[in-house]
């Protein structure tokens, strides 16, 4: 448990992705089975513990600790679990000659799986007593609540494991959903001691093929007659994998999100792996992304949500049918098979992404220019001859996003970045003018962290330090004097923001050193861009 706790402790404070990877890989290399397997499960949300520990903890604390001192401590620390981990009174009867073996993560994980809830209070007390340091007790409580929140995605954990054997994360993802914790066979394979685990017909995840953003220079070498063109639908990319009566819906990163979409997975009675876009669709019309968001990140879903936000899957591609892997075939051929299959099976709540008729570049330009009016994110170009390749292979698929919108905002607050940027004010909150009583005030409308060069960053950083009006920890308020031209993809109404709007993908286009702040745009200009929202 000590090593796992130390790992979580480092991860929680480490902002850089590569540094996290190194910490993770080092841990997996140095830690024996089965502990590392349970750690992997915990990091990929596979332990699936959700124990109601809050009340249990409080009851324990009442018995073991002074209530008034606990209250003062809790007030200071601000987090109950952390406070418990810190103040937990060690048993005084430590006999130095008898060292009980340290509690391992494996023992705790096995216990959790087999334990009934009645046993929880007693077990929790034993565990807390057995752990020597606040960090270990903190890690235990994190583990039991089921949410580690250490800034590591399941995919990052898998990437770290893959690195043990110099494999790619795609290879791990491909076998992942056929594995069971504590993943001994996975580690054996990665360390060259065993065969690659065989998913044996289970509906496992196959890494997705992604499109690269098209750049101006690409057009010169690109022969449109070799490409299929589709709309870039504004939902989330998914993979529907079904076999042997079991269906799973995977997000782009390989997380199983099927539990939130019973309207999709419960109706599946075929054997196929399909690539598509998950949408909310009403009467054949794609609803705004906001609607789909209501259904995401849920462990379960109510009847009302199902009725109000009906899910739909729009297929792009087929990776396999009845166990036949199609990925080596060219796109054109896979598409033909997909069409034939869809006509034959007619799966409910699904359709195919239309192939657009594009005789030449001029026609393509017209489609692209219309994308915003049609409330579509842009276009996808797919080489007819491309096999289905994992990752973002160059020269096969291109995405051409609709032209972004722009607005001139005024810098209001700046925050220090993390990692390489920790000494720079690199995160910017900007606002637009609006009427307030007799005068104009700025209301914040968004945040951007990108879109500037290193040289520009240095210059803005310097400007911010010279124009600070107030400091709040890592944040500085600045004089309303610097105009940022902001690019963004879309704007929606939002009750979570003071301005009432939320921008999608805002980034900095240009720093308008020349423009007086008073000439920046007004909030009304931004809100006028909001499309109807249900």
């Amino acid at each position, binding site marked *: 448990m000590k090593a796992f706790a130390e790992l979580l402790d480092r991860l929680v*404070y480490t902002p850089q992705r590569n540094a996290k990877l190194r910490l993770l890989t080092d841990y997996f290399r140095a830690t024996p089975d089965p502990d590392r397997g349970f750690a992997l499960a915990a990091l990929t949300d596979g332990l699936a513990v959700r124990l109601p520990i809050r009340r249990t903890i409080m009851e324990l604390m009442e018995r073991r600790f002074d209530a008034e001192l606990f209250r003062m401590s809790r007030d200071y620390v601000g*987090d109950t679990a952390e406070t418990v981990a*810190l103040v937990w009174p060690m048993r005084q009867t430590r006999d130095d000659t008898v060292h009980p073996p340290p509690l391992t993560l494996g023992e705790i994980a096995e216990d959790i799986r087999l334990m009934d809830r009645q046993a929880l209070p007693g077990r929790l007390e034993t565990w807390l007593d057995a752990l020597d340091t606040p960090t270990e007790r903190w890690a235990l409580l994190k583990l039991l609540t089921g949410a580690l929140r250490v800034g590591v995605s399941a995919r990052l954990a898998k990437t770290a494991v893959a690195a043990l054997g110099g494999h790619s994360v795609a290879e791990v993802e491909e076998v992942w959903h056929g594995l069971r914790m504590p993943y001994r066979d996975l580690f054996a394979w990665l360390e060259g001691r065993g065969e690659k685990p065989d998913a044996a017909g289970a509906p496992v995840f196959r890494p997705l093929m992604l499109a690269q953003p098209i750049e101006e220079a690409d057009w010169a070498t690109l022969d449109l007659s070799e490409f299929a063109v589709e709309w870039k639908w504004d939902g989330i990319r998914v993979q529907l994998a079904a076999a042997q009566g079991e269906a799973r819906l995977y997000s782009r990163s390989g997380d199983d999100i099927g539990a939130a979409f019973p309207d999709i997975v419960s109706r599946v009675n075929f054997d196929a792996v399909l690539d598509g876009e998950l949408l909310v669709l009403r009467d054949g019309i794609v609803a705004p992304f906001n609607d789909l968001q209501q259904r995401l990140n849920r462990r379960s879903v109510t009847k009302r949500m199902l009725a109000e936000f009906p899910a739909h899957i729009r297929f792009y591609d087929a990776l396999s049918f009845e166990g036949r892997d199609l990925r080596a075939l060219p796109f054109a051929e896979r598409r033909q098979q997909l069409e034939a299959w869809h006509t034959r099976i007619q799966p409910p709540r699904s359709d195919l992404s239309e192939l657009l008729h594009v005789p030449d570049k001029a026609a393509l330009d017209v489609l692209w220019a219309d994308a915003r009016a049609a409330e579509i994110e842009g276009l996808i170009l797919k080489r007819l001859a491309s096999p289905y390749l994992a990752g973002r292979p160059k020269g096969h698929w291109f995405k051409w996003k609709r032209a972004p919108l722009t607005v001139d905002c005024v810098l209001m607050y700046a925050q220090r970045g993390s990692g390489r940027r*920790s000494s720079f004010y690199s995160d910017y909150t900007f606002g637009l003018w609006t009427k307030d009583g007799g005068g104009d005030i700025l209301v914040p409308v968004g945040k951007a962290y990108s879109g500037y060069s290193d040289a520009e960053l240095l210059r803005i950083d310097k400007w911010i330090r010279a124009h600070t009006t107030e400091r709040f920890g*890592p944040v500085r308020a600045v004089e309303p004097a610097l105009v940022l031209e902001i690019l963004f993809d879309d704007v929606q109404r939002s009750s979570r923001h003071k301005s009432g709007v939320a921008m999608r993908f805002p980034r900095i286009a240009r720093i308008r050193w020349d423009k007086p702040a008073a000439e920046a745009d007004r909030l009304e200009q931004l809100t006028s861009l909001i499309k109807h929202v249900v």
Partner: protein
Amino acid sequence: MAFETWLRPDSSGLYCIPGGFHIDPSHGVARAVVTHGHSDHARPGNASVLATPETLAIMQSRLGDGAGRNRQALKYGERLRIGDVDVTLRPAGHILGSAQVVIDYRGQRAVVTGDYKRRSDPTCAPFELVPCDLLVTEATFGLPVFQHAPDKTEIDRLLASVATFPERTHQVGAYGLGKCQRLIVLLRQAGYDKPIWLHGAMIELCQLYERLGIGLGDLRPVSEATSKLPGEIVLSPPSALGDRWSRRLAEPVTAFASGWMRVRGRARQRGVELPLVISDHVDWPELIQTIEETGAGEIWVTHGREEAVVYKARQMGRRARALALVGREEDEAE
């Protein structure tokens, strides 16, 4: 006799009436007894100052002419009559030269701890427990959440991180007086014998420690480095963490050695990547242990989290009160 009749806080700090002196006054007074050299205790502008020889040397180095017109050294354990009281200084274990002030007056004994810790510290004399009637204790970490880790664990964590990220600099924020030198010696004791690189603000105090007999090994100013110091350990004041100064270092891992690092919110607030719980103050169990062991029937609690200590002391059957002293803001750098 109530202690308040001869020892009480006034606008300059804690004043001993029959001795006619202040202890760690917040600004210049006629007669000051100074517990140790940290700037919130040793202020400039006192007419006469009594302190240990080491503290006087530190004050001289930091304050120059402001260190006091009249400076008198009192070694640990020596007794000195001042007015109607007897004053003795006893090691406080906080930093080099730090002392508790023991005042005997008409059969009553008060001990003013100043800042203190009870763990061993290779850079200063160990804390001596002095039985007394009135204990005036600090309470910087006066909450049960503060239970400092063993130094060795924290030094091991730092060295493990250096091994994990050999292409990066480890920049350790540490208070320049005391913490910095203790860290260096702890690293040396752990077998780290490479050069340790210092921010300019730390060099003079390290030299002073060496003159006073604390060996620190190979130290070098960062200003003389010919690379961005990948794989090296750099000590700097906390204020230089993640700021422009650190841009000269190789993708620094930001570490901070402080008792505050026990609480996650504190570490996060400062953007620390490697919090090291190394403190020069007593933690909660040691504070309670000290109250118990001195046998004092009355406890006055100064700067820090007085509330919890007063509560606990009363539970232990002591008379206890919080002493709101001026000029003792929370010491962020600790």
